[in-house]
């Protein structure tokens, strides 16, 4: 069930286009037409960063440009390919899946007359924005130009409150309908100037909240680059950390996920010889890593953008990739900070982060660290040698309790909120059954018969029904219809709790593997719940 919810969170290209159109109040299409009409000339070599579903790509190719479109999302590119492949301009367009941050190494220098990017920079962390701008400066041929259209927080003091007032409900509605949202840039012209461009404004829409920046290379690199280190990380128990932990305990699968700004951080007092530990940018991940090493060793922590998701899930879902790590290496300038070329990656991101790509593109060595951050000090002390225990996932009681809490949070919202609203008298017994069954399952999980969640659900259902029978016999006799309802209820609860935890367990295949069977059992239970009272004449 939770995975269905997670799947729903992933936007599809059609939703994305719809969402963006709403958020920009329909002004993005005129903006794109303006770009194609006024800036594209016959025969121009154009790089489009973040071509999305290819609307602007087609327009620019239609004006006679030869367009290389890149996008990080394969689904978006698939949609663009469908659109462009069927059109007359297909020969003038090349589409490639690529992260914006790696363009510097993938195209020859000075190979484009125009670089265009719409609504991409606002999605990038500041370090990556800098890195991409620097790469753009190198990719532009003499006389070339960079165009960036993006959402901007208006600078006018009177327009700003109106903007916030209109935007908040718009953002909420758009997210609910399409799971699409955007962020806004601020002070982008300063960043452009720092990256060596002469910034200008080509067009301004919606009261200055949607702006087309034009940027011409200034022909010289600006003096004074910023220090590469993003900050210091310490293990501290703060009120924020406690609140985030509490939220994450029950609701971590509900976005927005708490994130850490990607970049290079120091833990302890690292020197140029200190190890570089790579991780994702989920707040909990970074804090747990720092907690495991702070005070025990000095290290550099390179936080890569994993969309605020833990490394294993992010790598499995395509959010944490070799490109993200390469981007972190490039944009952090870690090379200037350390005198070695060894990255230590979490072993659990190996399902999605291609180590050989990183080795080939950056020249850095990739070493797969231990599964648990707690083993890092021992792993480093042993010269990056892992014991078998370090490379294996476990599912101890503490982790089982933590993961069950996540399912409790999800089902709590799904079941207890409607119960609270409509059947308030049942709230207490239903909440008690949900909590009791879930945590009981977490404790006895390893000893229940069965190899997967579905098989383990059978003994759990029997135990739940036995509990119900005991309650009935202890003198709390309920009439037959009520017993029936409770029996169906606890059976369903036990079944879904057991099946659900499979998706949270590192030792079994994803819960999705059972999903079709879960759906069948769910429907069957619902059928029984509906038909038996009819047949028995209770209703």
């Amino acid at each position, binding site marked *: 069930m939770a995975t269905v919810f997670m799947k*729903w969170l992933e936007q599809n290209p059609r939703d994305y286009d719809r969402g963006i159109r709403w958020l920009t109040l329909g002004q993005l299409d005129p903006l794109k037409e303006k770009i194609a009409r006024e800036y594209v000339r016959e025969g121009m070599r154009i790089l489009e960063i973040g071509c999305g579903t290819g609307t602007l790509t087609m327009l620019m190719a239609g004006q006679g440009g030869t367009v290389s479109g890149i996008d990080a999302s394969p689904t978006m590119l698939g949609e663009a390919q469908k659109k462009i492949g069927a059109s007359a301009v297909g020969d003038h367009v090349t589409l490639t899946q690529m992260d914006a941050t790696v363009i510097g190494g993938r195209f020859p220098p000075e190979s484009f007359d125009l670089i265009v990017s719409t609504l991409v920079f606002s999605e990038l962390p500041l370090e990556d924005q800098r890195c991409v701008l620097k790469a753009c400066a190198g990719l532009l041929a003499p006389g070339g130009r960079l165009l960036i259209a993006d959402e901007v927080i208006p600078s006018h003091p009177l327009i700003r409150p109106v903007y916030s007032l209109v935007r908040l409900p718009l953002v909420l509605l758009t997210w609910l309908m399409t799971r699409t949202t955007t962020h806004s840039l601020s002070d982008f012209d300063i960043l452009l100037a720092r990256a060596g461009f002469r910034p200008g404004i080509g067009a301004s829409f919606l009261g200055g909240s949607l702006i087309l920046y034009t940027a011409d290379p200034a022909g010289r690199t600006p003096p004074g680059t910023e220090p590469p280190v993003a900050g210091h990380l310490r293990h501290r128990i703060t009120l924020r950390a406690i609140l985030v932990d509490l939220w994450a305990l029950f609701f971590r699968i509900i976005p927005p996920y708490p994130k850490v700004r990607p970049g290079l951080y120091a833990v302890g007092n690292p020197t140029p010889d200190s190890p570089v530990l790579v991780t994702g940018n989920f707040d909990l991940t970074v804090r747990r890593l720092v907690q495991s090493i702070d005070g025990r060793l000095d290290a550099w922590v390179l936080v890569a953008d994993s969309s605020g998701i833990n490394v294993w899930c992010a790598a499995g879902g395509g959010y944490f990739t070799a490109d993200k790590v390469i981007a972190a290496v490039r944009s952090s300038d870690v090379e200037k900070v350390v005198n070695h070329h060894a990255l230590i990656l979490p072993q659990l991101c190996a399902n999605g982060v291609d180590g050989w790509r990183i080795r080939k593109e950056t020249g850095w060595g990739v070493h797969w660290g231990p599964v648990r951050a707690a083993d890092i000090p021992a792993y480093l002390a042993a010269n990056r040698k892992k014991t*078998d225990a370090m490379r*294996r996932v476990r599912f101890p009681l503490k982790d089982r309790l933590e993961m069950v809490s996540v399912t409790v949070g999800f089902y709590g919202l799904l079941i207890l909120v409607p119960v609270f609203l409509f059947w308030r008298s049942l709230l207490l017994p239903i909440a008690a059954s949900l909590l009791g069954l879930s945590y009981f399952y977490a404790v006895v999980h390893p000893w229940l018969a069965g190899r997967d969640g579905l098989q383990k659900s059978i003994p759990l259902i029997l135990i739940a029904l036995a509990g119900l029978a005991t309650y009935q016999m202890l003198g709390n006799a309920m009439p037959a219809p009520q017993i029936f309802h409770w029996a169906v209820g606890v059976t369903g609860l036990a079944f879904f709790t057991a099946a659900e935890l499979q998706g949270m367990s590192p030792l079994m295949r994803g819960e*999705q593997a059972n999903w079709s069977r879960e759906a069948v059992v769910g429907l069957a239970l619902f059928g029984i719940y509906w038909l038996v009272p009819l047949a028995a004449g209770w209703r």
Partner: protein
Amino acid sequence: MGENPSLQSTMMEHLKLARVLGALEIRFDPDKCKGVRQCYAVCPVGCWTPDGEGRKIIFQYPERCIACGACVLQCPEHAIELR
């Protein structure tokens, strides 16, 4: 809700994934293996064993496999498939 194409396609995609994921199996071609043992370094459930006389790596515990795909991605010789 049934009219919503994204919800419907989500469900269909999910059912397809369910069918595939349950049946995935590791296919290992020992002839392609050059013995870099990246599979051994990244397998979180201990399917691979590095010893064995003259052999580079053995896919010894197939029943432990959770189809995470780490060994497939990290094998430089493309000797491992998940089908």
